[in-house]
């Protein structure tokens, strides 16, 4: 509906550039994901002070810890974009290194989240303690799920890079994985502010 002046991407003879089409589709999907995380964040904003008898955000958050894990996720965007850059230059060796580094940073972030969740449960905050607990765990858990999917895609892409199965026209390519990964990172930028920093 915005596309009134959209450039005509169709090539001559009805052939179209598959990787361009994929990128376009990925952006559309990410537009949709904005609304998904928007709904979860809205739920959190509505419930952030409804703590019932359970601990409140200010009591339970460990801001220094979360800042470090946020920083790690942020830096994984750097390794991702460097991997993307090597992919464009067809430097497969470098690309694998950066992709695996990105996946590694993602896993560190996930490990941090698992640690954080266990701590919170020990301190008495579970999904059924209060609406705040429900909203917190579901929002950050959902984001964690996205990170996990991203890690899987990164590993798969890197492994396909090893075995030579990574094809230019393959369904999964570094360009798409990169977009997805950066988006997941961007969502965390918002979550870090809205969920954690506002609670200090």
């Amino acid at each position, binding site marked *: 509906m915005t596309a009134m002046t959209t450039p005509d991407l169709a090539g001559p003879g009805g052939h179209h550039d598959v990787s361009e089409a994929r990128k376009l589709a990925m952006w559309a999907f990410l*537009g949709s*994901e904005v609304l998904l995380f928007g709904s979860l964040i809205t739920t959190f904003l509505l419930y952030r002070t409804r703590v019932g008898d359970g601990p409140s955000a200010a009591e339970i958050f460990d801001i220094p810890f979360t800042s470090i894990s946020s920083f790690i996720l942020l830096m994984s965007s750097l390794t991702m974009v460097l991997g993307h850059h090597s992919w464009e230059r067809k430097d497969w060796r470098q690309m694998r290194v950066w992709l695996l580094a990105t996946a590694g940073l993602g896993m560190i972030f996930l490990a941090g989240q698992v640690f954080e969740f266990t701590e919170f449960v020990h301190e008495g905050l579970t999904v059924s303690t209060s609406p705040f607990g429900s909203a917190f765990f579901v929002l950050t858990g959902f984001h964690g799920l996205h990170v996990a999917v991203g890690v899987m895609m990164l590993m798969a892409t890197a492994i396909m890079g090893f075995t030579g199965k990574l094809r230019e026209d393959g369904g999964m390519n570094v360009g798409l994985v990169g977009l997805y990964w950066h988006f997941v990172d961007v969502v965390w930028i918002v979550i870090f502010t809205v969920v954690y920093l506002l609670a200090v």
Partner: protein
Amino acid sequence: MATLTPQAPSPASTAAPGRGGIWEWITTTDHKKIGILYGFSSILFFVVGGVEALFIRLQLAVPNGEILSADAYNQMFTMHATTMVFLVVMPIASAFANYFLPLQLGARDVAFPRLNAFSYWLYLAGALFLTVSFFVGGGADGGWFGYAPLSTQVTEVVRMDYWSLGLQVLGVASIASSVNFITTVLTMRAPGMTLMRMPVFSWMVFIISFLLLFSLPMVTVGLIQVFLDRNIGTLFFDAANGGDPVLWQHLFWLFGHPEVYVLILPAMGIVSEVLPTFARKPLFGRSFVIFSGIAIGFMGFGVWAHHMFTSGLGPVAEAAFALTTMFIAVPTGVKIFNWLGTIWGGSLELNTPMLFSLGFIFLFVIGGLSGVTHSIVPADSQQHDSYYVVAHFHYVLFGGAIFGIFSGIYYWFPKVFGKLLNERIGKVNFWLMFIGMNLTFAPMHVLGLNGMPRRTYRYAEGLGLDVWNLVATIGSLVLALGIAVFLYNGWRTFRKGEVAGPDPWDARTLEWTTSSPPPEHNFDRIPVVHHEDDFWHQKYTTDEEGRAVAIPADLRPVVAEGPDEDIHLPSPSYHPALAGLGIFVMLLGLVYVPWGLIAVGVGGIGFLWGMFGWSLEPLVRGDH
């Protein structure tokens, strides 16, 4: 790199070599076959939803009905609405969109054929999942908009688990196909097919794809929250512990109102194709029809809270949403006048597709007007949850969407199957449905204003509700007869229908330039488009007074000297269906945690296998 001989003689011979029958349908990535799959599945569920409706009407035929228990009645009205909205009207629009979007754009397929197949299998998985719940503890019973706490109260029964999971999967299927259609429109149009030259039906598909893309994620989150509230003890909608059920209402209607336009816009697109064809005039104010469609798309996101006028939003929000609701009637009204302008002074051919389109206009105007009455908050507070509302949305959904869809079926059936549906039987079909529809739903206006609440399974004698309820039930039987006549017509046509030829209606858009049914590659040569209604301009020119004059066949511009040399078609693949099956098994497992976790694992492996196989296999047939 394999190329296909363009003179592929019949669809049967284009199957994957050595395979045929069901396997061919399971592995198909052809947008036309997927369209047919969508079509048949939704007709099947149309019958299921219709039977559920008949149960409701039989129960209400006389006071103190004895046919259904209160519990069974709850299941019937919930599943009737869920089935009709998500398993019938949405997928049948998807059937038309799949089949005709590429043909109208002059393309050989959609942008992502395997994703397209995956959407279908996901839809089927979700649809079967919702329906099997009848056999394992009962169908969903919390109403189609599943207000908490009706949807979240935890009982021994898993009904609303089936509902919340099933709808989520259907949502994912729709998001996937929306992404697909948007990309198709933006990247696959034939040379010269600018956006403004795109047929109106394709435009409406484009618009609803945006509506679905941005509205479905919100209800997805709501459904996840419902599922978690029921299963792991979150408190999202638990008012006793600080949760807020009104949040669910927002999340649902933020999706639910754009959804209303998702249901009606494809029908409006169909009507905008049928009227010009049979009035033998171009669509009046074509760009207005398109732009009002876009306006409806945007405004459709700004009216959701008019479903919640009795939820206590406060006067500011109520006034604001009352205004936006009145405003959205404007672009809808614009379209009505455009259609009237199209038939004004045309030489009308009153055949079955045209009758259904005219019926659409008539009934949709009634439903639209009763809809505007809901924008007035004090009046709405009286009408809310009464049969008046039921009457309103059946006029727009049955009189609107379904009549538009039937118009589309009669219009495009010859293109899809190569045979014309019988006209005489078609007219009987139309009049039975038209009369039955009005007999069923017009009395509900009166019933509602006389105070009959919706979703009550019994009413006492002597409340003044008896007569009109009986009339409505009789009407529903007439309606059912009409549908039966339609099914008979389809069955008869398959056996001995009149052969249609490529262009039986002397129509205007590109899908009619190719054979009926079209070859697997759609067009021997990708068309080059010079006009709106390009096919019309290939056949006709105008004289000095603006009258259409047919161009003799031998003087028409030569479109193609020969077939394109390399035609790439997507290769068949079983991976989308495997991934869909995996999802189905996972869903079943999720309902029966902890033992079901085994099924979740098995299904998960199937799903991942499908996805990875999909990303690794070659894209184009024979291309290694």
